[in-house]
């Protein structure tokens, strides 16, 4: 039983060691494995191991190894087998047999080196007493010596660090010699000097018993004054520079001395305020420059004070000490700085709001000083002014030379409005002048005349940069003239004779010119020559304003034909563009005619299909390069288009009326109707002609000539675009297209429309006639298919022959003719109503407004009426 339990336990252990997984986790598998083990081990059918069998197997194995060239393996195995056979053991053969059965391809897989791993590490040699004693013998003789308890005590450990911290010098001296003689440290003072010192410290003196004041000498008073002016605290003067009443000069009257000292005190007070202001620095560079200039002047003032002091301290020759003299001297050289102090006191509160105010005030004061002939003040202030100006000129210089602005530069009056704007609006929209309250420019007042020029210079540089032309590469930039006192006012000792403001403006203009002219010339060259401004304006005239009448007529005819043929798709913009380009290319160079584009506006057309209003549905467009778009602005193109439409409408009227030949009118039976027809036709044609000649001859030609003239003289882009705008505005006004002339314009359009309705009516009447004629012909003759045109011809030929028929025709046509008469009379009435209205309107406007051309048009229109 015990045996079985032992076997069971051992087999459990074996199973556990073979198993790959934790038996706790997988109990079922574990139990299965245990069952396998139990079942396997219980089997008894196996035979007992044969010891000799085992040895034979081992021998065979050995032979096999040697044959397969594994001698090492064979030797190792042999050795161990021999060893184990030397040992007694009942179960050794069984073990060997087990191993033999479990062996798995030893020839390939076994490695002799693996044996090395098996060998347990050699145990460390046992520690013997001898070895221990060799290392650490029991004792030597020293063990019996007395112990020195004080040698290594820890109480001494702190002292060394303390000694390092303490100062070395006294201790070294102390260290060298323990005692020293303190008496040796005392140096005997000089008693006389002490007395004198005590005397000089007058503030410590005791007051006189009678009047409670202390006597001081004049020299002391002078010294105190000089110290006070230098900004040092003194006992004679209080902190606010009032004279302390407790001191007096023995030899002078109190009142006079007080008066003198009070005046000096005022001076000191003003200068002190200046010093206080300087102590508060500002962050703007402009004001910092001003502060620097002021402090420099203050330094100079101190130097002069020091010179004065020197005169009293180390006199070269005997000088009298006089407070009066001091007062005079001080007053003389304090005048400029007092003026400066006054200026600062005035502008101090405003500096935060208006950072240029010091420049403006300085400018004014300089002019004033010149007028009042204060030479020293003038020179003094003018130097300060020019120093401060240099700082202000820096951003300006940068703008004018490179077209660049500093970020968030509040002090410069140009700022970038819209950096992402298109190139075509570069000139006008991208940069703007910064304006403050009341639309005043945010700059010192004396710059305002030149501000526009400065602005334009910078803009031209930006423009050129965009074009790819860099001004720095251009040759011969004129050297910038200096702007400082010597350059502006001359280096005369006396005051300059011309007023300072004039001199300054002149110098400043020269300065600006030096920067401005180069950029400008280059730009102007470029615009005129490379971009072809004048050529473009000419092309505009040809395209929009019918400069070449025949070409425009061709264009108009082509459009009208399309209008009449196909009602719906006549304004197809691609076909019209091709048409326009083809026609205009006879007049314009190819590159320019390619830029024409025709756009069609989609509007609901309630009016007649032949109405001239249809012409406003198509618009001509011209593609401009962006530099020219800065000059010929986009807002002026619609006016061109309106004018062009107006011209087309006049052409259309004429075209429609010309298609009604006099012969076709003649064949109207009714006499009165015929006369009316003739009259209307003639009048409408006359009206169209008058309008057209007015537009082209009276309005467009002179305006264009003026504009061209002015443009060739124009200096900068501002001027050019202004000229163009004026030109376009004038065109608009004179061509009756402006807002206040809208009623007149509408009336004229109505008049032109009458022509359209007349021609349509006429065509209808002719169609009716032709139909009735055809019917009659078919009654009389055999039906023949002919076009209306040929029938008309036939009618004309056979007019005299068909008189008899006409009577019949007239009889059958009478209701139709009656209708025609009504229509024609209606047209006539309208005409007679509108024309005087137009004329009267023109006259009244001509009287009020400024354009004499309206009067001219009114005259020409009335010419007909008067005769009526």
């Amino acid at each position, binding site marked *: 039983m015990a045996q079985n339990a032992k076997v069971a336990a051992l087999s459990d252990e074996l199973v556990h060691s073979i198993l790959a997984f934790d038996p706790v986790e997988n109990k079922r598998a574990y139990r299965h494995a245990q069952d*396998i083990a139990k079942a396997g081990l219980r089997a008894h059918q196996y035979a007992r191991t044969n010891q000799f069998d085992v040895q034979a197997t081992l021998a065979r194995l050995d032979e096999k190894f040697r044959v397969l060239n594994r001698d090492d393996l064979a030797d190792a195995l042999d050795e161990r087998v021999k060893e184990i056979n030397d*040992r007694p053991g009942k179960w050794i053969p069984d073990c060997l047999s087990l*191993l033999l059965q479990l062996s798995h391809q*030893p020839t390939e897989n076994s490695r002799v080196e693996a044996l090395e791993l098996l060998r347990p590490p050699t145990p460390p040699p046992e520690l013997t007493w001898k070895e221990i004693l060799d290392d650490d013998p029991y004792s030597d003789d020293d063990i019996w010596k007395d112990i020195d308890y004080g040698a290594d005590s820890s109480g001494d450990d702190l002292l060394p660090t303390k000694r390092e911290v303490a100062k070395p010098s006294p201790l070294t001296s102390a260290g060298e010699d323990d005692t020293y003689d303190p008496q040796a440290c005392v140096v005997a003072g000089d008693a006389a000097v002490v007395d004198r010192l005590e005397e000089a410290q007058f503030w410590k003196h005791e007051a006189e018993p009678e009047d409670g004041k202390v006597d001081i000498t004049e020299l002391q008073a002078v010294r105190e004054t000089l110290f006070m002016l230098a900004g040092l605290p003194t006992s004679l003067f209080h902190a606010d520079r009032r004279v302390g009443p407790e001191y007096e000069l023995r030899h002078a009257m109190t009142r006079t001395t007080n008066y003198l000292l009070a005046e000096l005190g005022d001076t000191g007070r003003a200068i002190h305020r200046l010093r206080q202001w300087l102590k508060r620095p500002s962050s703007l560079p402009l004001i910092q420059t001003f502060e620097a200039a002021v402090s420099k002047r203050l330094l100079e003032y101190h130097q002069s004070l020091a010179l004065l002091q020197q005169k009293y301290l180390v006199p070269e020759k005997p000088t009298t000490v006089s407070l009066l003299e001091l007062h005079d001297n001080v007053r003389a050289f304090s005048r400029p700085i007092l003026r400066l102090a006054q200026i600062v006191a005035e502008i101090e509160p405003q500096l935060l709001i208006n950072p240029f105010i010091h420049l403006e005030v300085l400018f004014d004061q300089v002019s004033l000083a010149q007028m009042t002939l204060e030479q020293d003040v003038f020179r003094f202030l003018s130097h300060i002014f020019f120093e401060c100006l240099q700082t202000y000129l820096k951003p300006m210089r940068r703008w004018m030379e490179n077209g660049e602005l500093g970020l968030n530069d509040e002090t410069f009056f140009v700022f970038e409005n819209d950096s992402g704007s298109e190139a075509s609006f570069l000139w006008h929209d991208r940069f703007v002048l910064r304006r403050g309250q009341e639309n005043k420019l945010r700059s010192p007042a004396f710059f305002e005349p030149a501000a526009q020029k400065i602005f334009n210079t910078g803009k031209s540089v930006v423009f050129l940069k965009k074009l790819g032309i860099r001004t720095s590469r251009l040759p011969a930039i004129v050297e910038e003239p200096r702007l400082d006192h010597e350059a502006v006012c001359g280096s005369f000792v006396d005051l300059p004779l011309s007023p300072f403001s004039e001199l300054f403006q002149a110098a400043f203009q020269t300065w600006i010119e030096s920067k401005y002219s180069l950029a400008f010339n280059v730009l102007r060259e470029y615009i005129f020559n490379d971009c072809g401004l004048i050529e473009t304006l000419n092309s505009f005239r040809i395209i929009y304003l019918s400069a070449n009448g025949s070409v425009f007529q061709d264009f108009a005819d082509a459009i009208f034909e399309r209008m009449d043929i196909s009602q719906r798709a006549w304004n197809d913009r691609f076909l019209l563009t091709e048409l326009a380009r083809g026609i205009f290319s006879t007049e314009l160079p190819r590159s320019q005619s390619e830029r024409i584009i025709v756009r069609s506006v989609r509007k609901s057309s309630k009016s007649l299909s032949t109405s001239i209003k249809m012409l406003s549905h198509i618009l001509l467009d011209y593609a401009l390069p962006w530099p020219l778009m800065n000059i010929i602005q986009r807002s002026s193109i619609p006016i061109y288009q309106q004018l062009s439409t107006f011209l087309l409408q006049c052409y259309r009227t004429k075209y429609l009326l010309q298609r009604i030949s006099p012969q076709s009118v003649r064949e109207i039976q009714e006499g009165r109707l015929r006369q009316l027809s003739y009259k209307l036709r003639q009048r409408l044609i006359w009206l169209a002609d008058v309008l057209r000649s007015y537009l082209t001859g009276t309005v467009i030609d002179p305006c264009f000539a003026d504009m061209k003239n002015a443009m060739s003289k124009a200096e900068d882009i501002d001027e050019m675009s202004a000229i163009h705008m004026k030109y376009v505005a004038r065109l608009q006004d004179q061509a009756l297209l402006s807002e206040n002339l809208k009623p007149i314009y509408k009336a004229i359009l109505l008049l032109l429309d009458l022509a359209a309705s007349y021609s349509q009516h006429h065509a209808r009447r002719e169609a009716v006639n032709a139909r009735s004629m055809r019917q009659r012909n078919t009654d009389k003759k055999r039906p023949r298919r002919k076009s209306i045109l040929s029938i008309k011809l036939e009618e004309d030929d056979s007019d005299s022959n068909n008189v008899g028929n006409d009577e019949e025709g007239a009889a059958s046509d009478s209701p139709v003719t009656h209708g025609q008469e009504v229509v024609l009379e209606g047209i006539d009435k309208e005409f007679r109503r509108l024309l005087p209205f137009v004329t009267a309107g023109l006259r009244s406007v001509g009287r009020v407004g400024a354009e004499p051309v309206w009067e001219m048009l009114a005259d020409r229109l009335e010419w007909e009426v008067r005769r009526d």
Partner: protein
Amino acid sequence: MPADAAPPQDVKRKAAREVIDILHEIATLLNTKLDRQQLSYCVSLIENGANPEALANVIRELREEYGTDSVDGGVEEPGAR
């Protein structure tokens, strides 16, 4: 006296250890994939009367089902002879 009794036991233990050592070396040479612990269990089992062939079969079966690839890779195959 205890000093005398100890050495023989010691000697015996030492001898047994040596035997196990040698057997372990032979086991390694023959590529049986038995480690020292397993080998000692096997020897104890044999000394307690287990049949070596049966034991070998059991070990092979267990290895086939649940064994790891601890010593060498590969499925257990019948021993080479």
